[in-house]
């Protein structure tokens, strides 16, 4: 048998290239290209009165300067609203270059193309724009008050208002023995891939063809959007995602203004043009996520069983809604986690503000939903004096109850129906790993030493691998080389490796003979993109199906040549051989030769496929009626619904009694993404996710001032964790296969970051003895909470005082 490839922690095929400087990221391409730079709005909300580029045009090396009025036809129309939704009644998108008005700092107004970036930026600095400043809406409270408007024609700043309800929440709430209300707050963060966005376009004037490269999570999406914008036949546009230096969601949005403008300029000028985003541009003109205010009202019985869950969310969608309302839809559905809510109602308002737009960032609304649900679970436990893990366990959906249909519509417009999962087993593993039952002793010990420690927990369920589809194409060359292509893109997930593992396993070939291409519309024109932890599930399944087709074809051809039945054959390390008689065999390369009947021999091996070689049945055509020439195959995978992964995290934190410094002493993860293709890569994904979660829990926030200026738009001021801030992660796995796809896999990409804010809040609350309702939390925030707690403004947990009051800290009544 071929060595087991699927499921093995195989080293990545990408790495020898990437560690030796052989990666080719966007700005590594096109050394002969002109450079684009942009003048971006310094104001959060203003009318553009005048643009004077007269001084800029004088700069030596400037090739072109463009404003909105220069953009012809569809190039000058608003950018597409990618995901319409019936409740998104007031969707708005920006223009490639601002038309008359700007709605956030960083919105592009002028594009300069010059011989190099230095010159282009010189010219940008000489462009004078006169503005009429308009009132600015920053922050969710300002947005929902509706006093000032972001868009004149959007009343109350409400882009969308959506309500989903299952069961009679009001009745269940009214009859519930206990109710609690929590007001919660999560701030903005952002994906912050180490490589910003970038676009590079070449126009082949002779052939009328555009080739573009984009640092994107969807090359097929960019291609279609750019062809439509530039009014080019799709057949004349190709888009390639080169090596991409991280994405985490922000690069799924398309077309970004630059993805339209750079190809447009390349065609107009007949010269290659490139733009590579700098870090400040990424902060102020890409996208952020997370910001929400939440109000949770929960009804439960004496044992802590949920009876009614009533959630209201106010979601900050920034200045525009190109990606629809996917983020709040995910929050409102994935909030439920592994629990049965009894009855459930979730209502959200997606609100405009004069800030950078908000689109999915790893987790995509789930960290907020998990925060709401898990804070609620802790509050119930505290109210009833129960163990926090026990309350969770009492509300779990059990394995015997799978598949579990929540009766809600998920982000893909399909039912929120969990396919599998073993939540009690996950919890048992987590408790063992973190030493849940021994923590009380540990705390006593720590307290005796004058240390304050707390234990936190968070559970989540993540819908992964949403449709509509992905495809896989496999072709075996006469050399035995196996070319695999799938259309979605890679940003560090190791697709070259995991897809090769699938092919090696399914086909019976060696890993080193398999070569995977992703994100190249020349190789696979039908694809959706890399988001929603979907690549392994979608492309992995499609590639497995394609491999099975190719295997069947190889066996048919070899059986014919070897004069045996296909059932008697096996493929081992690239050789087709008779089971039990391995001497009767031929290589897949030879099968490939035979698969393509030739008139002309191009080398020795090819002679075997020419018309005078060997014997053939004169009554049959050289290519059988149902066959195609070539040893290749293709298939697509399109599931009826998402597959649901899950996980549970626990952390032990220590808070400094004096400085309020927060230190994570231990961080434990139980992760279930179904069958694992490569556990080393899954673990890497978990590590990275947790690190981003730690950033979101303790350090990262977008500091907007009242005028809509982002005060910390640099790595100096936006605190992304270094190695010194990220704890060692202790991870263990459970593999509950998905019944939905041929490999039993579930997505793993986003998982790590989802529960981290919930877990850290839970642990800090446990250490401090008063509720934590707002994340991220800095030492200063905690110090301030301690002061307010000491002053009696914040109640203690019942655990410490056994007094009766609600964990709510809100003094203000939110209005919609």
């Amino acid at each position, binding site marked *: 048998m071929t060595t087991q490839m699927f499921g093995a922690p195989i080293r990545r095929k990408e790495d020898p290239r990437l560690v030796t400087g052989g990666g080719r990221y966007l700005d590594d391409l096109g050394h002969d290209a002109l450079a684009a730079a942009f003048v971006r709005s310094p104001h959060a909300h203003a009318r553009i009165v005048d643009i004077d580029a007269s001084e800029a045009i004088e700069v030596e090396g400037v090739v072109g300067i463009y404003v909105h009025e220069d953009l012809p036809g569809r190039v000058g129309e608003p950018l597409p609203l990618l995901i319409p939704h019936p409740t998104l009644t007031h969707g708005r998108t920006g223009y490639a270059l601002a038309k008359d008005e700007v709605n956030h700092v960083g919105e592009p107004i002028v594009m300069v193309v010059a011989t190099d970036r230095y010159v282009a930026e010189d010219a940008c600095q000489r462009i004078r724009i006169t503005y009429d400043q308009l009132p600015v809406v920053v922050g969710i409270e300002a947005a929902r008050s509706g006093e000032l408007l972001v868009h004149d024609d959007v009343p109350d700043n409400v882009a969308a208002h959506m309500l989903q309800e299952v069961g009679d929440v009001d009745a269940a709430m009214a009859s519930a023995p206990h109710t609690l209300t929590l007001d919660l707050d999560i701030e903005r963060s952002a994906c912050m891939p180490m490589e910003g966005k970038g676009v590079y376009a070449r126009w082949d004037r002779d052939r009328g063809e555009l080739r573009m490269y984009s640092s994107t999570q969807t090359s097929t999406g960019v291609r279609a959007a750019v062809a439509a914008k530039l009014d080019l036949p799709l057949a004349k546009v190709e888009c390639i995602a080169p090596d991409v230096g991280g994405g985490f969601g922000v690069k799924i949005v398309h077309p970004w203004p630059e993805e339209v403008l750079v190809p447009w300029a390349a065609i107009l000028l007949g010269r290659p043009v490139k733009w590579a985003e700098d870090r400040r541009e990424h902060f102020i003109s890409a996208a952020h996520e997370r910001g929400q205010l939440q109000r949770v009202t929960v009804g439960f019985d004496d044992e802590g069983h949920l009876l009614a869950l009533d959630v209201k969310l106010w979601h900050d969608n920034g200045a525009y809604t190109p990606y629809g309302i996917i983020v709040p839809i995910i929050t409102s559905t994935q909030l439920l986690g592994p629990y049965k809510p009894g009855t459930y109602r979730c209502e959200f308002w997606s609100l405009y503000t004069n800030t950078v737009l908000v689109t999915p960032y790893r987790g995509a609304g789930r960290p907020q939903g998990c925060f709401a649900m898990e804070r609620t679970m802790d509050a119930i436990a505290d109210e009833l004096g129960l163990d926090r893990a026990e309350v969770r366990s009492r509300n779990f959906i059990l394995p015997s109850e799978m598949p579990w249909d929540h009766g809600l519509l998920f982000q893909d417009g399909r039912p929120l129906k969990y396919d599998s999962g073993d939540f009690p087993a996950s919890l048992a593993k987590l408790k063992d790993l973190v030493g849940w039952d021994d923590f009380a002793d540990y705390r006593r010990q720590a307290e005796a030493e004058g240390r304050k420690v707390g234990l936190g927990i968070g559970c989540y369920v993540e819908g992964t691998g949403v449709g509509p589809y992905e495809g896989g194409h496999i072709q075996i060359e006469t050399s035995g080389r196996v070319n695999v292509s799938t259309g979605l893109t890679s940003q560090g997930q190791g697709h070259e490796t995991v897809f090769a593992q699938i092919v090696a396993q399914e086909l019976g070939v060696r890993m080193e003979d398999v070569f995977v291409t992703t994100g190249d519309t020349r190789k696979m024109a039908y694809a959706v993109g890399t988001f929603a932890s979907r690549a392994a599930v979608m492309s992995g399944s499609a590639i497995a199906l394609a491999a099975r087709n190719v295997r069947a074809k190889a066996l048919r051809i070899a059986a014919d040549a070897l004069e045996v039945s296909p059932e008697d054959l096996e493929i081992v390390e690239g050789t087709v051989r008779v089971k039990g008689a391995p001497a009767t065999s031929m290589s897949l390369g030879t099968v490939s030769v035979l698969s393509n009947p030739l008139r002309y021999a191009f080398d020795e091996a090819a002679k075997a496929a020419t018309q005078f070689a060997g014997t053939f049945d004169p009554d049959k055509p050289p290519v059988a009626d149902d066959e195609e020439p070539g040893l290749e195959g293709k298939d697509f995978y399109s599931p009826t619904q998402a597959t649901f992964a899950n996980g549970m995290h626990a952390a032990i934190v220590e808070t400094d009694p004096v400085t309020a410094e927060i230190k994570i002493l231990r961080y434990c993860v139980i992760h279930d993404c179904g069958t694992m293709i490569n556990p080393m890569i899954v673990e890497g994904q978990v590590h990275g996710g947790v690190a981003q979660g730690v950033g979101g829990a303790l350090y990262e926030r977008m500091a907007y001032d009242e005028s809509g200026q982002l005060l910390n738009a640099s790595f100096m001021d936006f605190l992304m964790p270094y190695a010194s801030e990220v704890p060692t*992660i202790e991870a263990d796995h459970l593999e509950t296969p998905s019944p939905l796809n041929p490999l039993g896999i579930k997505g793993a990409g986003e998982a790590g970051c989802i529960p981290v804010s919930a877990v850290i809040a839970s642990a800090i609350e446990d250490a401090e003895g008063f509720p934590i309702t707002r994340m991220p939390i800095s030492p200063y925030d905690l110090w301030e909470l301690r002061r307010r707690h000491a002053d009696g403004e914040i109640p203690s947990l019942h655990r410490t005082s056994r007094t009766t009051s609600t964990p709510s800290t809100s003094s203000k009544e939110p209005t919609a």
Partner: protein
Amino acid sequence: MTDTTPATETLHDVTVSVNGVRHSAAVPARRLLSDFVRHDLELTGTHVGCEHGVCGACTVLVDGQPMRSCLMFAVTAQDHAITTVEGLCSAPDARTVPTGESMNPVQQAFAECHGLQCGFCTPGFLTTVTAYLEENSSPTSEQAREAISGNLCRCTGYQNIVKSVLRAAEIKAERAEEHA
């Protein structure tokens, strides 16, 4: 170079040794070393993540010391010896791997320990760690973490990078022994 530089800008002659090769060029005073290496010499293994010296992706070795090439001008590299990630491949203790690349112990360790995902920040880590192991050839786990604490990575959570540093020290010692 000259045809992409505005005529009004004064050019300065500079001679820099990069990965053991002397390069002479005429560059504007403001040309960053990172841009010089990437766009003029077309050694694109060095990456630029922030252009303000915080992320460390652009770290190169200047006379063996890790420096942020986005905070240096090409003209200030005059007469200095620069080593980029491409140059690590020809270090005396680099070895050719089955896929054909030549890797120094740190490069080898990152590939073995899944010390990278998207690979964009990686060249900065590789140069930093290569220099660090010259100072401390057998770091503890804590020291390894400290050594990489000036570089940002958004993918890995650093755990496998720490592991890579420790493994690199082992490989380096093994290769030193082979040599001896």
